[in-house]
């Protein structure tokens, strides 16, 4: 633990971000896509904390609390949207949700 540097943290954050992005691109279930999106957000938050830690400032760390709070509210809205969508369309598969295209 002693010799972890900023680069390690950023690498981890980048890895999480790419995993999330890949999930968004390849998965079809809206719920999974949504989870992946959250993963991307968390990755960004992790980078913020890392910068805050290594720059010896508290700004980023405080910011993270706000992000987590807002993200919680946003998840509630997003999940509600998915539920509403399912009730109307009877599916949460993204490739079947193309009403506007036809």
């Amino acid at each position, binding site marked *: 633990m002693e010799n972890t540097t900023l680069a390690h943290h950023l690498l981890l954050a980048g890895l999480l971000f790419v995993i999330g992005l890949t999930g968004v691109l390849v998965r079809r279930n809206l719920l999974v896509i949504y989870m992946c999106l959250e993963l991307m957000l968390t990755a960004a938050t992790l980078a913020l904390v890392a910068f805050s830690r290594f720059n010896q400032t508290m700004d980023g760390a405080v910011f993270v609390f706000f992000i987590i709070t807002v993200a919680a509210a946003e998840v509630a809205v997003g999940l509600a949207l998915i539920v509403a969508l399912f009730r109307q369309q009877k599916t949460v598969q993204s490739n079947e949700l193309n009403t506007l295209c*036809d």
Partner: protein
Amino acid sequence: MDPIQSLHWILFLPLVSATCIALFLRRHGSIAAWLSTATAFSIAGLALNLLLTTDGKIGWHHDLAKLGEISLGFGYLLDANARLMLFVVTFVAAWIHLFSIGYMQEDEARGRFFGGLSIFMFSILGIVLADNLLMTFIFWELVGFSSYMLIAHYFDKDFAAAASKKAFITNRVGDLGFILGIAFCLHHYGTLNFEALASVSTFQGVPIIVGLLLMCGFLGKSAQFPLHVWLTDAMAGPTPVSALIHAATMVAAGVYFMARVSFLLAPEVLQWMAVSGAGMAALAGLCALAQTDIKKSLAYSTLAHLGIMGCALGLGHPELAVLHMAMHAFFKATLFLGAGSVIHGCHHEQDMLKMGGLLKKMPITAATFIAATLSNCAVPFFAGWYSKDAIIEAAWHQHHYAIFTFLALAALATCIYSGRMLRLVFLGQPQSKNAEQAHESPWTMTTPIIILGLGYSIAAGFAADAIIPASSRQVIEKPLQEMAFHLSAPSTWVGIFALTFGLLGSLKFYAIFPGRDSLQVFSPQTYKLLEYRYFDHAYGWYINHIQRRLAEFIAFLDLLVINGLAVRWIAGGFTAAVGQLTSRTFHRGQTRGYALWITLGSLLIIWFLLAR
């Protein structure tokens, strides 16, 4: 209150009143009327207090924006001319507001009317106080808007709608020149501030073009030749509006503005203003003889006086022009309000030939109307005499004999149409049922005309000491001293001849055929000649035959080149081709596809930013 603060109050109180009326009082005509009138009286009081307690120049400036070296700002400059103008505007306007309460009693849209009056007050005071060209221009346009709105008060009548459009569009023509003049000033002198311009222009010289362009604004707003055509039609508005805007203040604002920037006018420009002003004064005076509508006749009289003011400016006497503007404001406002009272009393009859014998039925109106008429005719010791004769005198002294002749003709014509008006309206027998049943107007209407008419038409010149605040009198004093009762001066002879021959002669002449116009009976051709509206027809021809052709040609080019070639063919073809291509690739209705493109786009942007 410190002077700047009171100037803020004077300028912004009417705006507050107008806003209140527009937002809350549209349907509450009587509250709106009293609110607007109370505002007008309070600013008159504030202005009077300011003029009595302060002296000399007052300046204040606040920069709103700074573009490089140029600052665009908002400010006040209260010099001698501005003081006189401030006094005239606030004072006349306050009484006209009171008059309107009586005159508009039965109008459905009183709220709109009084809101319009308030917004007009805001705009005209902005012109009076402005310390730079840009601010003047902004308020100049606001004045144009409020004039438009008030002329079109009876907008459901075709003639009023047409007249308001005519006034607005004619003013646009002049204002185009004005704004070009402002741009030129900025380019040439690098400042728009009046005081800075005054000092810069003395050692940099003045190109003719500046004066010409700025004069265009004056031509439109002050209804000078060749843009004078709108003023007579503007009488379609309610009579108090004609009195306030189209006789006393707004049309005079052009004269005031020219006096303010008189240092920017090259000699050639002045020459033109003098000649065209004098010519228009004579022509308009004669045209007033061939009008049966009392307001139209007065409108031609206003044109004649505006011509005289323009002529005074051109002769290099801006202070005389402003003095005449002030005197004219008082007696012409009285004449219009008197006409309004007559129209109101005669159940909205405007035809002079159908009036008559109103002297006994409306004694107060008649007395004030006669006093103002005498002032209009420049009877010695009445207000108009001091300023008008001084201008005629100035023309003689500068050996401009042609101008002198025109002015003398204008003076004569003034006396003739004034006599005609008195004879037809107040003397003789009533010529219609409406005139027989005429009644004196209520106190809200008679008080203003008594004060403006008896108080000011008679006394404004004679007792200037007592009535006009000392601080605004600087403008008046110089001409008054120069006048100093030259009994042998040519202008006095012109005046005496005009009065005896014109006024008394026309009183007799128009008594010959009761109920008809004597000139029309004796010489129908002359009457027709004066009645014919040459300029309306000339402009009509120009617009129909030249401008419309040009517009149609340009419309054709637009259709062919821009619409056809550029839009349909080039742009349309390109879009169609690209659309065919992209709809297959991008727009497939798959969320994943969109996410992919967003990712690729973001990567592209990041790469672009990092690679630099």
